[in-house]
């Protein structure tokens, strides 16, 4: 009596003969029990790195932007590179939960919760960079339009930098609403599995008193769908607007109309790489191999292959456009990227983002976990270099040869970047420990149609049809 037909030869999304009860137990389990020494060890390392980042930020606030190597020629450097990198990483979560929800891609249920959490943490890290680049960070509220005694001097609504303020704050807010509303029913589940009254109270507080009434579910589904519909153009708009920071300027190398689609593809590319980095580790540590299966990893690798190739085409198109424009400054900008003093950054970008993902044309490689993990790291490095190439190489040789310089970061800049990785990892580890890392209710909703047990039953239903007569499906036929 399945709700609708799904082919029995389609790869199941939940393995291990699970029942609804098993799903609850498996996903609630990591949030219970004593703190593991392993978890404490890694969290304290992440927190130490994070506090070093806070120290570097404090140093910059105390002594000013002069502690960074940014100057008249290279006005944006590591800070904006890191900002764009983090914002890009923050795209996969909403893509998985919103766009894949609208496309009815069921495999998203295994990874959407953790990916959305990752999105939120990445946007937090991203936001730090432009805020602290302001120098006088205590005046950061000047970026918001409010009536003031300076004229009133309003913010410039024509400026892409202000569009960024609106885009990122909206994206952050909507992501949190979407994520938390999805979490509420699962907090209810965790609460009802609680053994102690302290835990019960904690998770009941987080669950807002959720009881799973039919009317609540109906509204919840409606809300999720509309938030997904709103987030879909939103997620595309955010990186489009980030790209406007560059594309609406007149700097050779920045001033190109290809920027918005190129940035959005790159964002999804790097976002999925980060999701894979984290999920491959999390599925081992938290024993979630039955929920985040090879099918999930393969699907994400396909998306990385697609978006990586799109980014690669954009790189090649840029070179062609520079040549075709016959504009000496534009042509010099691209010659300088590949043959100038930063050629190694350009070469790393090309290799990591365009060449290396091509291994994923081969199915065996898409389903190889060790390779996927290495590739996810390589891609994240490559996408960092992409932003470095766009920002620093385009700036370091401007129109005045006497201002040419070779930029390299100070320890404060490097420390701030490493610190944000620490902040990100600390938040993610806390999330894995205290929150249900997989969307319990959503996995349960697809279990009866997309689980491995369902596949066996579905084959029973259609085995008389000619197309299926030579196919056998047994539980356990799918590898982890």
């Amino acid at each position, binding site marked *: *009596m399945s*709700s609708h037909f799904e082919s029995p030869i389609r790869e199941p999304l939940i393995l291990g003969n699970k*029942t*609804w*009860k098993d799903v*609850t137990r498996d996903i609630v389990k990591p949030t219970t029990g004593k703190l593991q020494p392993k978890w404490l060890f890694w969290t304290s390392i992440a927190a130490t790195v994070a506090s070093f980042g806070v120290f570097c930020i404090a140093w910059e606030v105390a002594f000013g932007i002069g502690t960074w190597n940014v100057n008249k020629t290279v006005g944006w450097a590591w800070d904006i590179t890191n900002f764009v990198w983090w914002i890009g990483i923050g795209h996969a979560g909403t893509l998985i939960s919103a766009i894949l929800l609208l496309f009815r891609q069921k495999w998203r249920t295994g990874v959407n919760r953790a990916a959305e959490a990752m999105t939120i943490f990445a946007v937090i890290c991203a936001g730090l960079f432009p805020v602290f680049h302001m120098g006088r960070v205590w005046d950061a509220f000047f970026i918001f*339009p409010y009536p003031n005694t300076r*004229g*009133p*001097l*309003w913010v410039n*609504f*024509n400026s*892409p930098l*202000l*569009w960024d303020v*609106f*885009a990122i*704050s*909206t994206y952050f*807010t*909507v992501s949190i*609403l*979407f994520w938390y*509303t999805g979490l509420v*029913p699962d907090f*209810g*589940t965790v609460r*009802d599995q609680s053994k102690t009254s302290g835990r019960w109270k904690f998770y*009941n*507080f*987080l669950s*807002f*008193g*959720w*009881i*799973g*009434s*039919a*009317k*609540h*579910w*109906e*509204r*919840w589904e*409606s*809300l999720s*769908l*509309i*938030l997904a519909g*709103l*987030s879909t*153009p*939103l997620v595309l*708009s955010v990186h489009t607007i980030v790209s*406007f920071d560059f594309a609406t300027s007149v700097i050779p190398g920045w001033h190109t109309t290809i920027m918005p689609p190129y940035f959005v593809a790159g964002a999804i590319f790097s976002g999925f790489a980060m999701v894979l980095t984290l999920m491959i580790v999390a599925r081992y540590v938290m024993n979630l191999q039955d929920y985040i299966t090879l099918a999930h990893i393969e699907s994400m690798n396909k998306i990385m292959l697609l978006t990586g190739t799109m980014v690669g085409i954009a790189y090649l198109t840029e070179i062609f456009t520079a040549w075709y424009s016959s504009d000496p400054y534009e042509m010099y900008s691209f010659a300088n990227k590949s043959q100038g003093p930063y050629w190694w950054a350009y070469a790393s970008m090309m290799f990591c983002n365009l060449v290396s993902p091509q291994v994923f044309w081969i199915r065996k490689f898409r389903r190889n976990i060790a390779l996927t993990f290495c590739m996810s790291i390589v891609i994240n490095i490559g996408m960092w270099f992409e932003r470095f190439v766009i920002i620093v190489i385009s700036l370091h040789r401007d129109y005045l040869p006497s201002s040419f310089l070779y930029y390299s970061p100070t320890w404060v800049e490097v420390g701030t970047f490493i610190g944000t990785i620490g902040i990100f990892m600390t938040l993610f580890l806390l999330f894995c420990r205290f929150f249900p890392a997989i969307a319990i*209710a*959503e996995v*349960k*909703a697809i279990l009866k149609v997309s689980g491995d047990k369902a596949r066996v039953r579905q084959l029973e239903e259609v085995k008389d049809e000619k197309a299926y007569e030579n196919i056998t499906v047994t539980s356990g036929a799918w590898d982890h």
Partner: protein
Amino acid sequence: MSDIKKYLVGMFDDDDVLLHAVSHIRGAGYEITDAFTPFPVHGLEHELGLQPTRLHTAGFFFGATGLTVALSMIFFINKFNYPTDVGGKPFFGLLAYVPICFEHTVLYSAIGMTVSFYYLCNLYPGKTPKIIDERTTDHLFSLTFDLENRDAAYISAVTELLKKEGAIEVYQKEI
């Protein structure tokens, strides 16, 4: 407390069985007070005869409000309050405001809908919920019947029907 009510609870272990049971029980003329499920069961709201939610309509109006606020604020600021002449360009250049207006539409719509959702469902941090059966957030489904002003004949008839429709457990609970 005065709001303690007595319920007849029927527990089910399958969503398809639950859907058929709901349609048969309502067809027999019994009123179901509420149904609790561990995940959204499609079609359940229809079988229960619930009104379709109008949350998305509210979302449209919240979004329209956001758009209006953004456009009118920018219009007022750039045209009247602090017009800046940049190379003779118009004070109110609509195209440049598309990103901010779009973001504002989404922001108002999302916040408005989410707040409405929690308000309508009466969910808030720190609420002490009336949990009829803890297993309904785990793996079972329940149908509840309010027993106020109901006699023993009604209870036994509904119990009978629930069991016939595949309930694995039927019991009464005061909460």
